[in-house]
């Protein structure tokens, strides 16, 4: 056999397909589709196309439940990224993707190539990328390896985004030891496009030429596939660490956009996981066509590469392009200007086969439908985990170290709550000069050139919540994302998601996946934010321990007029502070799921149920907030989330304006210490703090009353920079804002800078 590879018979007899991760049934199915034994290369192609990563075999049935349509949706799931109309003949293109496993092995390159991959998904649609976000999960920073993973991932994300010149404008970071061995790195990219420039990944038109453009192909990431074992289904990803080249990608981005702009491109798709194999199969599948590709024509940077290696290589910064026949020269010219290669390697056929040739020899010949449409679905067993029925709903009894103030300071310096400046100051958040709200507020805001509009972006997810209540936790992630957009003055438009879970072959894990996806679906319906794309990352387990079920929601909102942009920092003394939503929700909800409980009772913090969440309450609070912003009533808005009420208030007070806060709570009965903790640090959802000028207080309260939303006056913004909380006449927390601020700002840096 060519290249010293095993023969089809040997593949069968020695069960080589097992080392590729194919099961017995899957191998039989391949034989049935082909009507013969697959050769070595074909077996490799099937194995990657039918892998969890490419085929979504465990998650496909779950993903079908997402609402994916809406008035503004121009492109739902199925293409490289989804597209949503924002008026003026413009549309926003976005998607989120995970790069968890490579990051665990080589954090800098793993995170960097994750960013590179998601950017390609956006410009492959013809869109100009305008913003990046990232959602990160690591183990706690008191561990040196966690610090290593964290610092190098952040450096890699910055290294790629900064170099390519797309601002990284937002994201989130959570630290919890459940992620020690499986850090999560999810990257989101957003692009802008004119309606008539939308490109798709279709290989149509018999005889149209197929081009490989961008970087040369090497053996990156193929050994993994060869040695992957069925026991460790993601071993293949793990050994597949590639080095990214953001400079190359910047050139590729400019060249591809210039090429798409000529109107001579039939279809274009980036080469991500499973490189040439998946890009060609998917492009042919979308068009119902076939392809012939000659691997000897692919530009390579290593010698003696086999068809198998060529098809499975995951070298970065490459795209597959189908051009109008006879127009190839346009591509050659544009790519040459940018110092890149563009090479025709084959053409479109009408026979429905993906045919890989090596000069005169046929190396593989597979029906496209067999690779894509007939990919197996694994209907996983689902079982409600026992712990869910044993959660407590009473108030935990916490030992308060000394004062409430000290509790607040301790919470503010928790690495999950603390300022993420250490992270986002390493990202260029301003390049392109359209960033109107930089990282640090509830959502990032980026202007739409040539209009009065702006777009707001956010990523949100709380694995602990989803662990404690998969359905409601999923819904709450969507609600929090929407709330953050609303606080920034934006109308939520649509969602992309990254579903990070443990091993789906465990029924309890599959239950978490299924239930949380349902919760997300329900919430997306309520908030009218369809899911237009996303990504699934499974098998995030090691040593038998699975990560928290961690769906991350990326959401995009629209601000019709930049005058409505709102931030969370206080603006002026004398203004009033109000809470939209239930001030004393904590008395019923307790501290379940809260960061406070994790801090004070790490052994039992998972014993308590999540706060209640009611869609109507959430919707009401958001509607009032957004309308108040649009009516010009507010000067600041900030939602109450991680850390609870006092953390949110303190965050608002930490501004350059050197202001203070004086608030007074007047409960209708005396509160015990545990009651107070629940009110101050409980994480009941559906609440937003707002700053209002005196003359607008009346208007705000009437607006809230009209919507039946509780709206309580808490106190005022003060000139002296002190943070004071009264319960009736008693001062229960008092601290210089400066003291709170240094605890909050310095926490991560003090771990990282040693």
């Amino acid at each position: 056999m060519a290249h010293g590879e095993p023969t089809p018979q040997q593949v069968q007899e020695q069960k080589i397909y097992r080392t590729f991760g194919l099961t017995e049934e899957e191998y039989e199915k391949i034989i049935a589709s082909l009507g013969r034994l697959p050769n070595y290369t074909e077996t490799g192609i099937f194995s990657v196309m039918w892998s969890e990563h490419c085929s979504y075999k465990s998650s496909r049935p779950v993903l079908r439940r997402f609402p994916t349509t809406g008035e503004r949706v121009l492109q739902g799931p199925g293409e490289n990224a989804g597209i949503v109309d924002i008026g003026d003949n413009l549309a926003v293109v976005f998607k989120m993707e995970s790069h968890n496993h490579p990051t665990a092995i080589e954090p800098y390159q793993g995170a960097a190539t994750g960013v590179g991959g998601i950017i390609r998904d956006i410009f492959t649609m013809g869109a100009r990328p305008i913003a990046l976000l990232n959602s990160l999960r690591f183990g706690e920073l008191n561990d040196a390896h966690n610090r290593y993973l964290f610092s190098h991932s952040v450096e890699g994300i910055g290294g790629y985004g900064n170099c390519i010149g797309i601002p990284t404008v937002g994201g989130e970071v959570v630290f919890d030891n459940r992620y020690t061995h499986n850090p999560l790195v999810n990257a989101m990219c957003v692009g802008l496009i004119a309606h008539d420039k939308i490109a798709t990944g279709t290989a149509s038109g018999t005889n149209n030429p197929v081009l490989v453009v961008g970087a040369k192909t090497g053996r990156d990431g193929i050994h993994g596939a060869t040695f992957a074992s069925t026991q460790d289904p993601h071993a293949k990803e793990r050994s597949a660490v590639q080095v990214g080249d953001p400079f190359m990608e910047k050139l590729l981005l400019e060249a591809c956009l210039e090429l798409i702009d000529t109107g001579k491109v039939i279809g274009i798709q980036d080469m991500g996981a499973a490189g040439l194999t998946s890009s060609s199969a998917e492009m042919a599948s979308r068009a119902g066509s076939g392809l012939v590709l000659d691997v000897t024509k692919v530009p390579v940077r290593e010698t003696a590469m086999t068809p198998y290696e060529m098809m499975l290589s995951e070298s970065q910064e490459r795209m597959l392009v189908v051009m109008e026949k006879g127009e190839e020269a346009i591509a050659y010219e544009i790519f040459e200007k940018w110092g890149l290669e563009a090479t025709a390697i084959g053409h479109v056929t009408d026979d429905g086969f993906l045919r890989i040739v090596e000069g005169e020899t046929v190396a593989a010949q597979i029906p496209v439908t067999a690779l894509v449409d007939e990919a197996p679905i694994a209907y996983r067993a689902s079982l409600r985990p026992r712990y869910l029925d044993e959660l407590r709903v009473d108030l935990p009894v916490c030992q308060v170290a000394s004062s409430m103030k000290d509790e607040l300071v301790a919470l503010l310096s928790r690495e999950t709550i603390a300022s993420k400046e250490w992270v986002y100051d390493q990202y260029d958040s301003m390049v392109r000069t359209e960033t109107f709200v930089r990282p640090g507020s509830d959502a990032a805001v980026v202007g739409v050139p040539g209009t009065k509009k702006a777009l707001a972006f956010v990523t949100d997810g709380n694995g602990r919540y989803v662990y404690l209540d998969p359905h409601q936790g999923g819904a709450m992630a969507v609600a929090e994302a929407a709330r953050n957009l609303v606080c920034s003055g934006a109308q939520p438009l649509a969602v992309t998601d990254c579903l990070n879970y443990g091993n789906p072959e465990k029924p309890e894990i599959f239950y978490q996946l299924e239930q949380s996806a349902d919760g997300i679906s329900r919430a997306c319906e309520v908030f009218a934010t369809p899911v237009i794309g996303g990504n699934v990352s499974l098998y995030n387990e090691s040593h038998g321990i699975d990560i928290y079920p961690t769906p991350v929601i990326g959401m995009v909102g629209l601000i019709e007029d930049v005058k409505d942009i709102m931030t969370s920092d206080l603006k002026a003394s004398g203004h009033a502070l109000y809470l939209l939503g239930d001030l004393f929700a904590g008395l019923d909800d307790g501290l379940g799921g809260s960061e406070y409980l994790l801090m004070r009772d790490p052994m039992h913090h998972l014993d308590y149920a999540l706060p209640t969440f009611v869609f109507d309450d959430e919707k009401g609070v958001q509607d009032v907030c957004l309308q108040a912003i649009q009516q010009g009533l507010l000067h600041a808005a900030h939602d109450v989330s991680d850390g609870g009420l006092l953390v949110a208030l303190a965050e608002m007070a930490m501004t350059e304006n050197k202001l203070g806060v004086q608030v007074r709570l007047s409960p209708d009965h005396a509160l015990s210490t545990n009651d107070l903790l629940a009110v101050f640090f409980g994480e009941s959802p559906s609440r937003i703090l707002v700053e209002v000028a005196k003359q607008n207080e009346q208007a705000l309260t009437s607006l809230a009353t009209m919507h039946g939303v509780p709206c309580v006056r808490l106190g005022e913004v003060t000139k002296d920079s002190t943070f004071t909380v009264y319960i009736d006449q008693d001062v229960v927390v008092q601290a210089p804002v400066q003291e709170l601020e240094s605890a909050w700002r310095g926490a991560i840096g003090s771990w990282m800078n040693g």
Partner: protein
Amino acid sequence: MTWQALIYVTLKGSVLDPQGTAVTKALHAMQYTNVHDVRVGKYLEVVFDADNEQAANEQVQAMCAKFLTNPVIETYTYRLAEVAS
């Protein structure tokens, strides 16, 4: 005894070296077309104490494996010499 280790770290041969590629291209543009290949790596000079040569060797290898390089993508070589302390 005091030792100096000179450590040369490069990306593994099969791993893409974008920096090396860019430098090669730049040299070609500067008319150094006789240059075939450039690879760019890291160079470290580490001065440290160790009781004997074997201990010194062991420490260099341990530091490289654990911290100074990532064996997933990098390889290294080193030279070791005793120096006046």
